[in-house]
């Protein structure tokens, strides 16, 4: 086709440009011309938190994922409790809290999904452009999203885990179950809830990096399952150490440590999984922040 036409000479400016001093308003928030009667406030993280809270509670996907989460955790928890109780077992002094593990492991998928959707769905719908125009401090938006999501995920998980904990203790008291100590209660409720909420926040950061809901969810589900699956196929004895590490540091095993029923005796123990997840989430969030500032929306 044709070459682009030569750009308009900048000297041929309209009249109003001739007197830049007069035509240009003093730089400042007021600019020129119109002043709104609505008072202008200085915005801060609190505004972004309120906005993100409105957003997260006003879409159905939040209700759906959290609804399924509660159903999974409470439903599977109650089911396992009743099945174990009806089989008239001898628990041999084991903590009944550990029965809640299965429900929370499956429920973790919902937390991952919600975490990814909190960020990635804005990219899918184009909402992110509206958001970033309304709040050019991109870091503030991501921080607000992470805080609101973390709080919500933590509270919902804590309520479910506590409920199931009490149920299991009540159901299994008479079958020689251990009366859980204070630390066991703390790890089995607050600890595992913090862990799941962090896992969700990690997904949120991945969602912000990948910017694609399905892609980010796949990555996160893969991160949960792949280490176990890969470890299963490591027959060679030279890979034994790797296999062992994959087992021990896989997310399901890390979660089970909160109930002290690890798949192995070595590897992380006590509160270690929480610190591991904290470091991973922090790193992912840091990367997400850096990319968000750098990339075009």
């Amino acid at each position, binding site marked *: 086709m044709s*070459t682009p036409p030569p750009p*308009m000479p900048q000297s041929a400016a309209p009249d109003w440009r001739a007197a830049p001093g007069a035509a240009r*308003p003093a730089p400042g928030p007021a600019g020129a*011309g119109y002043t709104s009667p609505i008072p*202008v406030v200085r*915005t801060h993280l609190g*505004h972004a938190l309120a906005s993100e809270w*409105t957003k997260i509670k*006003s879409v159905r996907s939040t209700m759906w994922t959290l609804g399924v989460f509660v159903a999974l955790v409470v439903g599977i928890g109650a089911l396992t409790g009743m099945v174990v109780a009806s089989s008239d077992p001898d628990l041999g002094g084991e903590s009944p809290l550990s029965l809640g593990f299965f429900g929370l492991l499956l429920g973790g998928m919902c937390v991952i999904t919600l975490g990814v959707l909190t960020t990635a769905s804005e990219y899918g719908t184009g909402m992110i452009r509206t958001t970033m125009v*309304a709040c050019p401090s991109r870091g503030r938006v991501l921080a607000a999203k992470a805080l609101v999501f973390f709080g919500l995920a933590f509270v919902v998980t804590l309520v479910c885990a506590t409920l199931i904990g009490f149920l299991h203790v009540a159901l299994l008291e008479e079958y020689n179950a251990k009366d859980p100590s204070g630390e066991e209660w703390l790890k089995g409720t607050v600890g595992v809830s913090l862990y799941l909420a962090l896992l969700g926040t990690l997904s949120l950061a991945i969602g912000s990096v990948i910017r694609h809901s399905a892609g980010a969810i796949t990555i996160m589900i893969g991160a949960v399952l792949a280490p176990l699956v890969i470890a299963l196929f490591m027959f060679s004895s030279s890979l034994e150490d790797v296999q062992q590490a994959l087992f021990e540091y896989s997310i399901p095993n890390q979660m089970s440590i909160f109930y002290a029923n690890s798949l192995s005796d070595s590897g992380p123990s006590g509160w270690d999984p929480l610190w591991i997840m904290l470091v991973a989430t922090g790193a992912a969030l840091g990367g997400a922040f850096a990319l968000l500032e750098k990339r075009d929306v």
Partner: protein
Amino acid sequence: MIEAVGLTKRYGDKTAVYNLSFQVRPGAVTGFLGPNGSGKSTTMRMILGLDNPTAGQVTIGGYPYRKLPNAPRQVGALLDAKAVHGGRSARNHLLSLAQLSGIPARRVDEVLGVVGLHDVARRRSKGFSLGMGQRLGIAAALLGDPQVLLFDEPVNGLDPEGILWVRNLMKSLAAEGRTVFVSSHLMSEMALTADHLIVIGRGQLMADMSVTDFISANSADFARVRTPDSEPQQREKLSVAITEAGGHVLPEQDGALRVTGLPLPRISDIAHDSDVRLWELSPHQASLEEAYMRMTQGAVDYRSTTDQKAGLQQPLPPGAQPPVPVPGQGQPGWYAPPPPQQGGQPFTPQGTPSQAPAGPYGAPGVPGAAPGAQAPNPYAQPAPQAPAGPAPAAPPPSAPSADLTKPEDAR
């Protein structure tokens, strides 16, 4: 006040915007025009801090957008109407935006009323029509009661009532002393709304002037003359007489003549002197659309060609003539009245080598044409042989449609 200085944006090796400098004043509606893919949206995104410029900068009120304190209270933008989460209700969408910039929640209901969406405020925006989505986007732009407003294609999908509303809204916003920057493809709409125009093509500035200046700089007014259809020899006679008198004649498709370079009374006198009756003698003021098409024809990236259906058509029965194509279809020069003066035309695609000799309007081929109504006009050159050549603007009625694409292929 929006001010861009040397704004450049590259995506990989594709340059979307190159060295763009302009200012958008408060108190006026400034139209932002350009063909598809010319970089309008990219420029808007850079103004709003969504894209980082590769070079140069753009400021609003002296600040880059991302450094503005409480930006949404100073700048409102409609980028694309569907940039909302479809699962959220209109009211919650606006509420979340209001909360983000500390705007009281009752303002949400106000703007919902302003755009006429209060009845559907609690419905999910997924079910909104294009026009309703557009109104929601305008509501979001108005939410912060800002002094600078950017609208990207605001009347897309609106009904006539909505278009009128948007037109008046833009004007009233500008009358309040705000800066209003609107991009649109609807030339008739722009002619009614905008006071000032910024035109870009292929990412470069092509014009920055008032609407009236733009039209007069990029199109020639002409007189339409019609002689009795039954006597073609009268038409020839008048053409010769007018050309001798220094006017320039271009035959139009329907048999009328386009005359430039002569005032209407003079044409009438000539007709009278040469004993030619006139059926029509009417002044024609070029529209913004024509002026725009003429200016941007060299900068259009996506151009339609004639649908030839090569090898698919039934052979025409003997004696039948192929249908005359609709003006503008695959005819790049259709909207190209010549510029009134060559010297002041930085926009004509003069750097187009393949086009220079071929242009039937002679625009690039007559560099010596001086400004002024009596000066030789580019119309003068092709006029005599125009019916014989592949003049895209004036195809002989019986010309096969394949001939019409020649100028297209020549590029």
